[in-house]
């Protein structure tokens, strides 16, 4: 079945190479995202899950749910990409000849991620997860400026290098299954049935190696170092897509952990996850504090959230997993809102640095509000849905140790404070209105210019365009508003169908 899918998508991508107009290429990318979105919705409602189609294609609630999140993110990014790449080309940063490569990598990323998710065979999952890294790196390097290429190479080397360790884990797993069953296998479904017969020490070794690989893919500390660079140096769209790929890593970790849950090394595996989670959150929240680069702030916030997800998985109770899964969805919605808005601000100021942002409310009021509301959502304030997700994960973590809860809470407060600190300092700088005394204007403006100049020198800028208002194309605002509205709606009303879906995932993974 996967062969047919790849064949169809290959033809589709080949067609995608024909059109010359940007509009058509973009429409194809958006259509591709929507196609996957609709297909996964249809599969969720029509099929009797879990379902096996052919030798390697395996559909269950978990991978369809992750696919749903991924394709939703892709569709929104495709709508945003049009205006964004247009303005990149206008500014001369993106070579129009690279546009085709951009959309090719864009579509290919979704296809490879889909195959990775739906393949029952772990080795196929590994290989396609590797290919997503390659595609995402191409998207990061698309501007072919030194910073981009540097970030892309860092991404490839760290993630692929770590994924080789995951492959060592696969070899362990294969040996284990050979020992227990007589014939080696790497199918999730078969492994899940026989996991309790495997030797615990080897299973733990295998889990540890796999965790290194998938953890790097997810951007978990200490393998997170690619993430801030990829976020800050790549164009916003690329950052969004590499962010979406983090869920793929988390998906692998959830699967692996559910294999181990039955054996008697589950506590050790849990403590690995918890330790990595706490370390990620601590590192991220301290790096966020006093962070002056907006996209780096958002990137470290991603690391923090991946840490929290790991803790949700590592606690090992059905309730914690339920909220961790919900968290994956909401995190994508809110993170995309933030990155969409940050991208607009970057087009306006040509910089992500706090000190270069002036008159934000006058120049880009909607992007500013997007950032403010997105920040409120991401730090977990009600009525946004990250509040219940964080609340219940923290509540469950008290069962492991109350000190863990306390430490997490303190670090989350620090992260929230960092967002507040950034927004207050970046958005409160206003140049003086004209109706005031002329003298003061001049001194203010001059002082402002002088400050700006030093900032510019510090930041190694050649030019800063302040007064010209960047005209945001309408397609760029819609996805941000849509994602934020969806997040808000999920915070106010929790649909029954979503609850049933998450319950079904937990049941299928063998919890309860």
């Amino acid at each position, binding site marked *: 079945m996967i062969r047919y899918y790849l064949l169809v998508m290959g033809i589709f991508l080949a067609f995608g190479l024909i059109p010359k107009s940007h509009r058509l290429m973009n429409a194809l990318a958006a259509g591709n995202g929507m196609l996957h979105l609709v297909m996964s919705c249809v599969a969720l409602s029509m099929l009797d899950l879990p379902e096996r189609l052919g030798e390697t294609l395996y559909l269950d609630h978990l991978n369809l749910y992750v696919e749903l999140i991924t394709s939703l993110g892709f569709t929104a990014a495709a709508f945003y990409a049009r205006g964004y790449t247009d303005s990149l080309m206008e500014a001369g940063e993106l070579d129009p000849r690279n546009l085709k490569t951009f959309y090719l990598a864009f579509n290919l990323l979704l296809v490879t991620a889909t195959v990775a998710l739906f393949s029952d065979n772990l080795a196929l999952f590994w290989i396609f997860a590797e290919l997503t890294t390659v595609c995402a790196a191409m998207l990061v390097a698309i501007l072919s400026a*030194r910073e981009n290429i540097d970030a892309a*190479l860092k991404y490839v080397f760290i993630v692929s290098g770590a994924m*080789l360790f995951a492959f060592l884990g696969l070899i362990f797993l294969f040996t284990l299954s050979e020992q227990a069953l007589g014939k080696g296998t790497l199918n999730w479904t078969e492994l899940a049935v026989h996991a309790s017969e495997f030797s615990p020490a080897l299973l733990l070794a295998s889990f540890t190696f796999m965790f290194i690989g998938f953890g790097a893919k997810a951007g978990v500390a200490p393998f997170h170092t690619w993430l801030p*660079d990829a976020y*800050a140096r790549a164009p916003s769209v690329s950052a969004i897509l590499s962010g979406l790929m983090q869920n793929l890593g988390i998906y692998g970790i959830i699967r692996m952990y559910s294999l181990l849950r039955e054996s008697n090394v589950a506590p050790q595996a849990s403590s690995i996850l918890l330790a990595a989670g706490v370390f990620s959150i601590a590192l991220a929240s301290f790096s966020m504090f006093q962070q002056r680069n907006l*996209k780096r702030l958002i990137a470290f916030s991603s690391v923090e959230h991946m840490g929290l997800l790991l803790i949700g998985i590592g606690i090992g109770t059905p309730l914690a997993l339920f909220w961790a899964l919900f968290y994956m969805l909401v995190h994508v919605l809110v993170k995309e809102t933030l990155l969409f808005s940050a991208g607009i601000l970057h087009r306006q100021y*040509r910089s992500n640095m706090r000190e270069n942002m002036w008159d934000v409310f006058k120049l880009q009021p909607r992007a500013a509000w997007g950032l403010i509301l997105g920040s409120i959502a991401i730090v977990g304030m009600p009525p946004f849905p990250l509040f219940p997700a964080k609340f219940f994960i923290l509540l469950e973590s008290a069962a492991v140790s109350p000190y863990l809860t306390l430490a997490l809470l303190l670090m989350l407060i620090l992260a929230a404070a960092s967002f507040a600190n950034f927004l207050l300092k970046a958005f409160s700088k206003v140049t003086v209105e004209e109706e005031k005394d002329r003298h003061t204007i001049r001194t203010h403006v001059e002082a402002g210019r002088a400050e700006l100049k030093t900032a510019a020198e510090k930041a*190694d800028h050649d030019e800063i365009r302040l007064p010209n208002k960047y005209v945001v194309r309408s397609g760029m605002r819609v996805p941000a508003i849509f994602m934020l509205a969806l997040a808000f709606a999920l915070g106010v009303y929790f649909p029954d169908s979503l609850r049933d879906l998450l319950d079904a995932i937990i049941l299928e993974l063998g919890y309860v």
Partner: protein
Amino acid sequence: MIDPTFLEGIIKILFVFVLISAGLIISTRNLSSVLTAYTIQSFLLAAVSSLLYMIDGKNQLLLLAVLTLASKVILIPYFISRIEQKIKIGRDLHFAYLEPTPSLLLSIGLIILSYTFLSGVFKGLPLSKLFFFGAVIGLSLTLMGMLVVFSRKRVITKALGYLSMENGVLMFGLFVTELPFIIEVLIIIDLIILVILTTIMAVGMDSSIEEYRQKFRKLQIWTGGESQ
């Protein structure tokens, strides 16, 4: 039929040479020597695989040897040497965290580490001594490759470090278990894509070509990155 113990002896000698080649990749400053060391390492891997075929008689091992020879001894080194000529940089003088001598000492530590780790993990498995040593060498090769990726600055050397890591993984797989052949093929395809991508990017990064320098200068306006 050749005596298996004799073949095992040869494999053990080859292990030593594999480790030496890994050490060369870590410490050599000349880019083309690093490439030669990698080519020799891949060749040794192919040789080990075909010797194992002579002992075991499994066709898959022979196929793997041929595949390794074609891709890693001929195709990839050829491609990289073309790129090396193109970027006109012969030497990689800079080390990021570790100078060669400490990193060689560290890699001895890594070998001991992988020995103790694997002897703990493989306690229950019926592996013969030779296969256990193969697994140890494979794991330490992976770790040493990682050391190269961390400590070298030029992208080309980093890519060779990554390739050497992958050689280690393949060696580990060779001795621990028998993976389905299709997986090995897929890994090599993945490897080739990755090498092509990174080396093309390396032309942008490492290049001393004037055209690229100019392009970068032009794009310096773009300051999205860290500029603190």
